[in-house]
């Protein structure tokens, strides 16, 4: 379960300040697939960065399961990011010079889990339909293939939470549909999936929606 409790994020802006999040609270159950929507600048990505432990809230708390993740030291946060969270972002966040395998392997470099890493990579690439591209450099892949690689990387270390920031923003509808199908299957497999999107069609496929406006849930 994910629990967000009264999150506030303030950025300094010129002489004043910008409240990117202003008291956001909600819970997400294990295996739930939810969409966080809202206009550009509504605070969606800020929320996702905080949930992904890439940024710190100014106020408020954030729990993953029973663990208060927002209060953890940086070192522990890195461990949680590695073991509990998988990221998928709009511009894929892949290392272009790496091969598909090298990209998928990144979380496993830092993982303490006792797993057969080679086997885990092969299995996850099979699930996203990229078995034949394992040694292909990422820059040679299409947009859809890149996003599948990113999803493979997000799940290779078997995290409980998948955070996706505009995952289909750079894809055509056919590829977007395929990616969404993958998220649905991950949810069915018990992963908690949080998708930040402004695509209403994508959000409509999620059983639950949270709408943000000016840093608040409406």
């Amino acid at each position, binding site marked *: 379960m994910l629990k967000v409790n009264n999150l506030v994020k303030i950025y300094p802006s010129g002489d004043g300040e910008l409240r990117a999040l202003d008291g956001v609270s909600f819970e997400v159950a294990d295996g739930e697939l939810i969409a966080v929507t809202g206009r550009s600048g509504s605070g969606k990505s800020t929320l996702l*960065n905080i949930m992904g432990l890439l940024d*710190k809230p100014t106020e408020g708390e954030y729990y993953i399961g029973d663990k208060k993740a927002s209060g953890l030291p940086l*070192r522990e946060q*890195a461990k949680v*990011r*590695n*073991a509990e969270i998988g990221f998928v972002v709009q511009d894929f966040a892949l290392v272009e010079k790496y091969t598909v395998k090298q990209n998928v392997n990144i979380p496993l470099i830092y993982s303490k889990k006792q797993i057969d890493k080679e086997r885990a990579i092969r299995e996850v690439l099979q699930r996203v339909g990229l078995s034949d591209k394992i040694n292909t450099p990422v820059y040679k892949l299409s947009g859809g293939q890149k996003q599948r690689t990113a999803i493979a990387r997000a799940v290779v270390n078997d995290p409980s939470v998948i955070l996706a920031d505009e995952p289909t923003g750079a894809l055509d509808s056919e590829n977007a549909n395929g990616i969404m199908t993958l998220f649905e299957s991950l949810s069915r497999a018990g992963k908690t999936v949080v998708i930040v999107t402004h695509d209403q069609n994508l959000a409509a496929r999620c059983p639950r929606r949270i709408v943000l406006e000016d840093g608040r849930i409406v």
Partner: protein
Amino acid sequence: MNLNKIKLIFGDIRLNLRAYIMLTVQSVIAFLVIGVILLVSNVASPKINALDSFDLSDNYYGCIRTEVYTNHGIVSGEEDRQLRKEIEYFIAENYEVQGSIDSYITYQGEEEGIEFVTEKFFDIFHLEVQEGRLFEKSEYGQDSLDNTPVILGAAYKDEYKLGDMYLDRFEIVGFLKDDSNIITLAGDLSSLFCIDNYICAPVKSLKCMKENNLGYPTELICAEDKGDLKKINDYANELGVYPYNYVSLPETKALINAVANQVNLPLLLISLMITLLALLCLIQSMLEFVKKNIVELLIHMMCGAKLSDIILRVGAGTALTAFISAAAASLVFRSASTTAVLFITATAVTVIAVLPVAVRLKLKPLIVAVKEEK
């Protein structure tokens, strides 16, 4: 650290190989200069330490340089050596003197060296015997070379034994300890030397030394101040020998330090500049690396890399550069102390170079840095 992390580090180095080679060359030069400074310092410090440890009084003076020159040029002939002996006799007659003098005794047609030493010689230089005894007070100042005891340096320990007669004439009464050292008061030309090969005999009376045409030990002349030594130069002038220069213990130490510092200071400045330059280049190259690869680093952090993993990855190239350079320079000097100093320097350079990057990463989370880059 697992194999994948090591692969990442070497992958980064391979991609920036040319820059790393340049930095390594620069660092090697910096470490070589540091090594040279240490070498020069190491030459000076044992002399100073020895001067401090021996019982040399501030009233002792040594002669330098001009003793080997006459009005006719550099001393070389028998006549000039005779002039020197005349001056030594004059000094011995008028001043308290200590030290040793190399003399030659003819034995079976060959000249064999013996060092005649003064009464306080062993005390001043803390010389002790490993076997046998030192000379007794009564054995100094004898009027004859007969029944002269000798103390041999440690090098002769396997060749002779106590009670043997050296040159069939001098009874061996003791052997000095290994690594026995003495020093001269000769300003920056002072040298610490080992006397393991000495054959020491107690100095005879001045009359006896004169009769046997042997020089007299005048390495250390005791005087209240330098002005008291003027009459030696007056006498030297009468004999047509250039005047002597006299240096005391404090002057000798000051001259040794001055010469070492003279060499050290420019080298130190050059070394500092080169090291500083190398350090700046290392810091710059690391910051460039972070800037160039910020997205990749963020991806690794997103996937669970800790800040320490990133710093290790960024700093590993620097550490490798610094330690390879220190190792290369150490091979040139082949000295344990120099190697230790160079490796400590390499560690310090790595820490100083990594520090700004670590602070930058710590103060500014990568997500913020990436947004700024974008």
